[in-house]
């Protein structure tokens, strides 16, 4: 970007395309990078929290994601969807990190056929809490803390792959077919992974969780 065309608006208001163009330059524009990091840091960290189920690892993963982006910064597409790009980088790194420790667990491929048979479509994708809550943010603070601990415990009990597909499906809004294309798996396989993850969540949201969300003793 030439000085003549550099916009006069505050850099924090620049669209992604301008910031990315400035970061691609040699040397990169540090102010533009600060603005871009600030714009995406919280959402990236939140995604990493769901993927890792660990706040410290989430912070490391988010930071490593930015490092990976910066190492490839000359190839950044200013007109691409940066939000989706950085989310994919984070997911890919998380997959790398978890691959070495991944073991054949409850989501092993050979078990999927039977899982399809066990779960009907009518099961839906809900978790039973004591009350039908239209707004979880409306819960009293202490109940929000309890529910959050429950969610974290349940997520931590899932395999890394299960968390990944749940985030792709429910946070990114990807279809099972789209996830399957990305991971080189069939739509049916991804659907089975999601169903199994939901079933595990349901099982782990047992009576003690329900008790905590209504504020009573577990």
């Amino acid at each position, binding site marked *: 970007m030439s000085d003549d065309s550099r916009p006069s608006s505050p850099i924090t208001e620049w669209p992604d395309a301008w910031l990315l163009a400035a970061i691609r330059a040699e040397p990169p524009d540090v102010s533009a990078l600060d603005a871009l990091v600030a714009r995406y840091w919280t959402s990236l960290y939140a995604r990493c929290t*769901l993927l890792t189920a660990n*706040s410290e690892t989430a912070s490391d993963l988010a930071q490593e994601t930015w490092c990976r982006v910066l190492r490839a910064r000359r190839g950044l597409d200013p007109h691409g969807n940066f939000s989706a790009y950085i989310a994919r980088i984070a997911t890919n790194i998380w997959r790398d990190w978890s691959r070495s420790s991944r073991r054949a667990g409850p989501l092993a491929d050979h078990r999927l056929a039977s899982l399809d048979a066990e779960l009907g479509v009518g099961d839906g994708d809900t978790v039973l809490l004591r009350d039908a809550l239209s707004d*979880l*943010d409306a819960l009293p603070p202490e109940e929000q803390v309890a529910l959050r601990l429950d969610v974290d415990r349940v997520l931590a009990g899932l395999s890394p792959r299960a968390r990944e597909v749940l985030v792709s499906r429910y*946070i990114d809004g990807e279809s099972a077919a789209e996830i399957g294309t990305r991971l080189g798996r069939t739509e049916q396989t991804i659907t089975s992974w999601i169903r199994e993850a939901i079933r595990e969540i349901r099982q782990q949201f047992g009576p003690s969780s329900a008790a905590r969300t209504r504020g009573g003793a577990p």
Partner: protein
Amino acid sequence: MNRGVPIERLLRWRHGQAEADAPPAPSAEHLLELARGWWERWPERFRAQLMRLRQMPLAYGYAMSPSERDRRGHPVPTLVADAEDVETYTRVTYINVREARFRMRFQVEGAAIRPHHAFDAIFVSDASESPLCAALAVRSHADEYRVDVDLPGHLVESWGALRVTDQMPFRMILRPTDAL
């Protein structure tokens, strides 16, 4: 009464909570420093390794018949940058590019190379003074190392057409991660 909370709502709620609790964003300067590869931190050593690697013949020491080469692929000149730099070759056993994701498995030849849990793998060419790309190569079963990395856009098309039996358009520098 519907007493269920959709998974999506639960995850989005937790996502929102995590956003609210996010630590301060790291500074750009800090990230730029972290993002520097070892070849940028020690450019002279990288240049020396690059020169040494380029002097290695493409099939040094390999008297393979054409049929064997077709079956096993061409050896890739490789420098293992351990305590001292060791010239060797790697054999690509699997290569695939899908959705700009580069997946490769390879074996390091030569008994003198001790196995490592992982290498920082640098892919270089004869035409560029900078690495084509860098990736973590993690050891898996059968003494294979596995690479799974996002490929720079300009390489997607050409590397996407590669087969294991092709002569690879790169040479490699492998640096054990515990040496970084």
